[in-house]
């Protein structure tokens, strides 16, 4: 993955930048020592690393504004960072950039149950937003698997999803307002506790813009009353086709589970070795969860079981209590850990129309043979979001490159079948150079036109999302 060469003129200004930033921030909030900036050299796409020139940790919107104004005046690129769990390299620095971390801004500013909103500073972790309202019977719905670590700022930038978004939607569907600091330091309030935008839906385009339009410092989020209960069932099939058909039949029948998760055989085998959840060793395993009162759950699971049985499952197991429910989820939740235990892995994130599942799995199998690398699949089946995990060995020269080429081919296949390159992890640097597989140049120019308006100098996270060749002229202007 290429990154633009650092601008020597900016590197030469490091001392001045440190001094100017120190004038607006507390001493411990400006990190410039080379040993310490290493802490910010990568995110969860750790194959790529580069320490920034400086990292700053402002404590308020006003401080963020002051930092951005200085960087804007000095023409220094800024890479916003929250918890650094991006799998796409979204918060990867360049050597001439300032990392702007919001991790110190993690207060709850207001909870308003009657209006079903919470306002937080965006450095707050996803799980602790739910944590703040849990005792009063509420929760924040988007639940990325990284929710213990990842922060709302990153969730907004990536429009993150989770296992339960089939029912509750992703971040954009649960975001009501933001405080956005523009690259020139201007502070803008967009949206709030009211339900829809007054003019253009700027909030809609800010969410998912990967830190390229402004720095989000506060957010108003929709919170929901917790359902009375939830219960999963586990269904195993000996063919991907049949499992896919079962998912489609459940949806067509009008039952809307909160989650339908899918694991394929390689994934089941790996997690069984690792976590011993007692999964059947079959081709396709579904975990389907529904919510409501115990009686309501019985009714819904009754309908689902009836449909599932029509397709001849090799196993159908319903959780009878909380313990069994936890066991059913155990394997799925440890899937990534299990893979990490076997080998290095790369986690992909393409989406396909649900009906294309068997085809994409067949395609992946063929590619796996061609590249000589194993792939295992976990999959949000209700919404078609695939997570193929390609196993490779980082110590074997050439393996990473082979793995990336294999991954790119899988994503091309997703697009060919009517899907997209990324369902929830974002483009970052990882899928940047594949954007032209999904979009025509004109489509990308339209997206870049939005950045031109918000950040005319292209200083915010400039080397991400768009293929470098496509964004080159714009970035070149910034570098002058």
């Amino acid at each position, binding site marked *: 993955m290429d990154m633009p060469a650092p601008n020597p003129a900016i590197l030469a200004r490091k001392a001045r930048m440190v001094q100017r930033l120190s004038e607006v921030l507390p001493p411990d909030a400006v990190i410039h020592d080379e040993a310490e900036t290493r802490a910010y050299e990568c995110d969860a796409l750790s194959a790529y690393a580069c320490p920034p020139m400086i990292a700053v940790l402002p404590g308020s919107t006003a401080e963020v504004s002051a930092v951005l104004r200085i960087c804007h005046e000095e023409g220094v690129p800024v890479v916003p960072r929250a918890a650094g769990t991006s799998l796409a390299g979204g918060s990867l620095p360049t050597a001439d950039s300032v990392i702007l971390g919001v991790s110190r801004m993690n207060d709850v500013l207001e909870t308003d149950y009657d209006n079903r909103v919470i306002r937080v500073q965006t450095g707050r972790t996803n799980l602790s937003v739910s944590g703040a309202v849990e005792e009063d019977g509420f929760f924040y719905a988007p639940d990325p698997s990284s929710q213990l670590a990842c922060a709302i700022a990153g969730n907004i930038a990536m429009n993150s999803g989770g296992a339960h978004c089939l029912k509750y939607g992703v971040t954009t569907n649960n975001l009501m307002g933001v405080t956005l600091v523009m690259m020139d330091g201007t502070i803008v309030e967009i949206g709030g506790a009211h339900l829809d935008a007054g003019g253009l839906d700027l909030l809609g385009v800010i969410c998912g813009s990967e830190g390229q339009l402004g720095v989000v410092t506060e957010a108003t989020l929709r919170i929901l009353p917790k359902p009375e209960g939830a219960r999963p069932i586990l269904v195993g099939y000996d063919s991907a086709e049949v499992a896919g058909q079962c998912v489609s039949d459940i949806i067509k029948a009008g039952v809307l589970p909160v989650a339908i998760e899918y694991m394929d055989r390689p994934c089941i085998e790996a997690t069984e070795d690792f976590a011993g959840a007692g999964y059947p060793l079959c081709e396709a395993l579904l975990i389907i969860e529904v919510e409501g009162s115990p009686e309501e759950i019985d009714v819904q699971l009754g309908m689902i079981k009836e449909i599932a049985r029509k397709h001849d499952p090799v196993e159908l197991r319903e959780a009878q209590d909380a313990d069994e429910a936890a066991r059913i989820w155990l394997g799925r939740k440890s899937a990534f850990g299990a893979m990490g235990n076997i080998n290095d892995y790369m986690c992909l994130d393409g989406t396909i*129309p649900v009906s294309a599942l068997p085809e994409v799995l067949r395609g992946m199998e063929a590619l796996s043979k061609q590249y000589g690398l194993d792939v295992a699949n976990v999959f949000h089946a209700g919404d078609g979001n695939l997570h193929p995990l390609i196993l490779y060995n980082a110590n074997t020269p050439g393996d990473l490159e082979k793995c990336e080429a294999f991954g790119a081919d899988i994503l091309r296949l997703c697009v060919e079948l009517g899907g997209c390159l990324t369902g929830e992890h974002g483009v970052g640097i990882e899928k940047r150079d594949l954007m032209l597989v999904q979009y025509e140049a004109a489509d990308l120019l339209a997206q870049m036109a939005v950045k031109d308006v918000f950040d005319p100098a292209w200083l915010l996270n400039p080397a991400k999302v768009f293929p470098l060749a496509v964004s080159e002229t714009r970035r070149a202007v910034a570098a002058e």
Partner: protein
Amino acid sequence: MARPETEQDLAEVVRAATEPLRIVGGGTRGMGGAGTPLETGGLAGIELYEPGALTLVVRAGTPVAEVETALAAEGQRLAFEPMDHRGLIGGGGTPTIGGVCAGNISGPRRINAGACRDFMLGVRFVDGTGQVIKNGGRVMKNVTGYDLVKLMGGSYGTLGVLTEVALKVLPAPAETAVLRLRGLSDADAVRALSAGLTSPFEVTGAAHAPQGPGGEPETWLRIEGFAEQMSYRTGKLQGVLAPFGEVEILRDPEETASIWRWVRDVAPFHDTAGDVWRISCKPTEGPQIASRLDAAGLLYDWGGGLIWALLPEGADARARLGDFGGHATLVRGSGQRFHPEPAPIAALTAGLRAKFDPKGIFNPGLMG
């Protein structure tokens, strides 16, 4: 007037245009201001409908009714419950799906299911230079690049002419029940709606009419689901609402549907004189904000967060409201339709319009 039959032809019309165009979907709202009408009705038809994947791809000029019929045949629906403006505006026309998406038109179920924009998965549109652009796709999860889909939803044609939209659809629940309270003050009604909405029983409609269909105040909460769910949830909600008065439960499909149609289409203001304003605010503040209006008629939806107000012709609702942390749109009447925006937001809006419509030909004058 132009009425192209294909996206390519539409793009050609836009490319050649030197004077303003007024983009007309079904023409039910008489919006768009001056300019040569550019009708989208020639771009009609469902391109793809996969009930098992909850996805629909449809050309922008397709009548909403045609979409709803196709979905109903599979037991599905547009969950955001788009309003039909014809009765309120008093005009004719046939609402199109493109018009609904361009206006981000959502009805009572918005409070629970989300707005129209939340169901938009992908768009194709023609920008102001005649360039065809696509964004998003047909799958439910997609974060590939910027979300121009949301930007187009609610842009009222000011950034481009929609030619095709992909929508997420949902199963239509088997049954509906309505809990009705009578005689509540606006403030108590909104408290009751909040109580319902903060319960775990998934209220999918929460409205209050100071003057209901019978002239007296009526407050309604809706739940939807499968048959076995209805009695359980209505029973629980009856308990939640008990402090506010006697709760009636309505289960008749015709009757419940007609209540929500009445709310959705703002029926109390049909065949009335005066301007109609639509005010979006923090739900619990609804009654207090509405009281500043001195309105001839009011209707609250979205738990109090959406106020429909009938005012004398030419009255300036915004002046009456003062600052209130929301916005007021003039839906019927002449004057500035959209709420003026703070300077930095207005600058972003103007910047986006200049990028997407450099000739300034799309619905000039609309949206600031």
